[in-house]
């Protein structure tokens, strides 16, 4: 069953075409990798789906419902969550408060403060931030803040989770832990996940299907092997000979 469908989606910034005519469909419970060099349009694509930016053209369907043109908070309520590559914690609030707020809104829309706090504690346990619950978000290290981004997205109780470079800058061991963590909550929560990552090994390992963007256009999609051997992909990364 298709959860997310993009039809000829484009986004222009003045003369620059950041996302160019992308057509893509993502099945329920899939983990899809999104790959591409810097400036390929990956983050812009997330912003279009999450409603942080309106598309200049095209249609986006989520659960068979048009979501392009909706506000970010409306899309969040339908069950779409994203993390930010450049992290955006609620710095002046505690880690627990950060996640509790997500549980109060998003598609969980918990009415009571107590049950929202309980949900937040469970999610912090899931991402391994329990011992930092009482600290201010500003006191976390970068990898802690990336975990907080994931926790905040999870606490909204999404159907679709978009992870924007949450593993960048992690060591190999931390990366492997993160992969295991994403697999775990994908299974327990029946999530559909789109992952943007620069660490190719991780992406190949985690995602049965990979989509490659180049200068805003979709140039290849398929299994990790197919994509790795695709001449257009190799050219886009290494340049043409």
């Amino acid at each position, binding site marked *: 069953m298709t959860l997310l469908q993009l039809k000829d989606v484009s986004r222009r910034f003045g003369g620059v075409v950041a996302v160019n005519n992308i057509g893509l469909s993502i099945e329920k419970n899939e983990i899809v990798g999104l790959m591409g060099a810097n400036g390929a349009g990956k983050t812009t694509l997330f912003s279009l789906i*999450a409603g*942080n930016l309106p598309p200049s053209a095209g249609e986006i369907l989520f659960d068979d419902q048009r979501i392009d043109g909706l*506000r*970010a*908070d*409306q899309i*969040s*309520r339908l069950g779409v*969550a*994203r993390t*930010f590559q450049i992290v*955006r*914690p*609620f*710095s*002046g*609030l505690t880690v627990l*408060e950060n996640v*509790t*707020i*997500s549980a*109060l*809104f*998003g*598609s969980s*829309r918990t*009415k009571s*403060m107590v049950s*929202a706090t309980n949900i937040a504690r469970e999610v912090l346990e899931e991402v391994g931030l329990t011992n930092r619950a009482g600290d201010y978000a500003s006191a976390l290290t970068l990898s802690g803040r990336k975990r907080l981004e994931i926790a*905040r*997205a999870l*606490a*909204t109780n999404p159907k679709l989770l978009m992870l924007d470079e949450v593993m960048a800058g992690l060591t190999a061991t931390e990366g492997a832990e993160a992969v295991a963590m994403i697999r775990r909550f994908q299974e327990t929560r029946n999530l559909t996940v789109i992952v943007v990552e620069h660490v190719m090994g991780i992406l190949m390992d985690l995602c049965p299907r990979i989509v490659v963007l180049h200068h805003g256009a979709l140039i290849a999609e398929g299994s990790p092997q197919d994509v790795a051997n695709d001449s257009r992909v190799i050219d886009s990364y290494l340049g043409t000979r």
Partner: protein
Amino acid sequence: MSRYNRCLALPTLVGSITLLAAVPLYGSDYITGVALTLLMWLALTQSWVVFSAMTGYISLGHAVFFGAGAYVMVLTFGVLPFWISVIVAGAASGVLALLVGYPCLRVRGPYFVILTFGLAELVKYIVINVEAALGKFGRLLMGAPSLDQLFWVILGLAIISTLITYTVRRSRFGAGLRAIRENEGAAETVGINVARFKVLAFALSAIIPGMVGSVVVLRTTYFEPLDVFNPITSFTIVSMAIIGGGDDVPGPVYGACFLVLLQELLWANWPEIYMILLGTFLVTFVLRAPDGIQGRLAAIRRKIAR
């Protein structure tokens, strides 16, 4: 908060409210007047905190709600019963905030600050011109309720505004507002309708100042637009909130007590020194203790606990 503190909190609260409510019975008119002034600033600052301290959108125009409430009282004085006028004044200020909030709350930071200030001045001069066109230059308000009665109404408003701050700070609504303050884009992405939250908080924070304005104008028994729309009112509210600190109930209590006390001590004999000291305190707090008296006290308490 320790269990001991929590047990003490309620009796202390009830005790101090009773003591305050009895001020007109045992105090002189002077004492009642000072207490009224203190409670008035407390109500205004609590209301300001609900919007500005929680969302981070600093309003430098809250005098406009105070003034609008006063103007409603003046227009309906002798026509409507006192109570009805107070409620209409609050409603009018809330509606005014809804109307101006929608366009104003699209801009952030210094732009919003200047916009609220400019808006308050705009409304002030509209009222001045309307009054001039009507041929009125200041109005006398004869037969106003006594000082004691006004005091009790203001006490009620101070209690209500404190309860509003307390409730909002611990509610889902307040959580949304604080998220907006910390990062508006992230707040929207976790599902908070930021435009609606901001406008509702702005309107909520305008109602009590409108009611306070409508009551306080009767204390002077004279209406003068330049007085009730005085931007000093806005500055004082912001100063009290900054010196008090934080986005919860204690900040405005500390800030209002501190500045009203300072003013009473210095105003009569050394008014120039009061302004100099106020400026010095503001600069010191902003630079050295942006979390205000409340934040400093909390830090001391943490140190003792350790």
